[in-house]
């Protein structure tokens, strides 16, 4: 396990006051909080910052951490010294925070064994939350997915450790982006015979190569040849449940939407599939193609800029 330099993570001196630490934390939180930041790796960085703050803002934990001394370097292989924690009495403090559970092994090895002392009596387990990405196709056919989550649990010595938790979950047909699957009793086990918490899975679709999702509706860009758009045509279009033939009305322009009712995500009522027409020009890369374009130029009186008054 790696030693973590909590002072370095917050960018403060070892002599920093409680106020300095709070200021440094707030500033970093504004930059890296996953709810406000789009920076790559913000979530991991914020976790580290939160962990450092959890230790340094608490005078007891900070004093104990300082006791490790300055001989450790960030990233160095670390084992807690045998006399670790003697003479310190830790209280529950801020341990009930929503964001606490997923701290590092380093944190758990130092502070894990007392974080849950107050839970010895009968108490309902905590709810857990996770986001999962599923293919859009699951919403059409339903599926069973195996997911592995990391969840904090108590080991035999009562220390908090991260355990992998593998679950097989039925994804029902008709599920939509942003919906939750609630699995009763799959959160933290209760203590003293109290019920366990629940696990909430927030469902999101993987980005799909063809379809964009909005609620229960889908949209697809459908390329058309100029003559198909101009003269009207019956063309093939993919849908999540198979290829269909659609009638493109004569005189269609790019951007026009054709609605295929009930071809979106299944449900009561099902969503719709919108085909967004996109007229694509053939390349004028042969003498024959150039000739055809020239014929059009000569024989069609067409000014695409008429509306601009030029």
């Amino acid at each position, binding site marked *: 396990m790696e030693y973590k330099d909590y002072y370095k993570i917050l960018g403060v001196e070892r002599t920093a006051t409680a106020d300095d630490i709070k200021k440094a934390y707030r500033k970093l939180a504004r930059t890296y909080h996953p*709810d406000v930041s789009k920076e790559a790796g913000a979530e991991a960085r914020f976790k580290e910052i939160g962990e450092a703050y959890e230790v340094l803002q608490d005078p007891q934990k900070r004093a104990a951490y300082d006791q490790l001394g300055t001989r450790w370097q960030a990233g160095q292989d670390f084992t807690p010294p045998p006399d670790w924690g003697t003479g310190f009495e830790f209280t529950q403090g801020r341990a009930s925070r929503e964001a606490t559970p997923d701290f590092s092994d380093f944190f758990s090895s130092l502070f894990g064994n007392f974080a849950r002392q107050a839970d010895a009596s009968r108490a309902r387990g905590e709810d857990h939350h996770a986001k999962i990405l599923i293919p859009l196709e699951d919403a059409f056919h339903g599926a069973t997915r195996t997911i592995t989550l990391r969840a904090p649990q108590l080991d035999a010595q009562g220390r908090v450790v991260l355990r992998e938790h*593998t679950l*097989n979950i039925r994804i029902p047909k008709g599920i*939509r982006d*942003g919906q939750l699957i609630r699995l009763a009793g799959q959160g933290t086990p209760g203590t003293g015979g109290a019920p366990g918490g629940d696990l909430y899975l*927030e469902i999101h679709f993987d980005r799909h190569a063809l379809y964009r999702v909005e609620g229960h509706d889908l949209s697809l860009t459908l390329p058309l040849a100029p003559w198909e758009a101009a003269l009207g045509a019956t063309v093939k279009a993919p849908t999540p449940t198979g290829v269909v033939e659609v009638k493109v009305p004569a005189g269609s322009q790019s951007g026009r939407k054709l609605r295929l009712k009930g071809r979106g995500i299944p449900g009561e009522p099902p969503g719709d599939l919108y085909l967004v027409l996109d007229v694509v020009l053939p390349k004028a890369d042969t003498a024959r193609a150039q000739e055809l374009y020239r014929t059009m130029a000569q024989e069609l009186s067409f000014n695409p800029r008429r509306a601009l008054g030029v």
Partner: protein
Amino acid sequence: MEYEILTGNIIGDEGVLTTEELARACRAEVSWIAELIDVGILAQEGEDPSRWRFCAGDLTCARRAARLQQAFAVNTDALAVMLDLLSEIERLRDRLKRAGLDSEE
């Protein structure tokens, strides 16, 4: 156990979570949920928390509110402003994405 397939309850656009369940999922008190309703972060009819019911979007929003409040120690009014701005940014990002203009991915 390993081959057990779990079937959960789907929480979607309809209000199914009670106020206690929502509070527990946010590791907060029922009174905190009532504060969110007071400032309009969540919407419910009436004054009686035992009659309120919440949907998936409410849970996602309340958990985000809990995370932001912990990190920035803001009052619920400021929290409401942060959440409004964040959802506005999300809405605009979605529009960019639908227009095929998202450069981030």
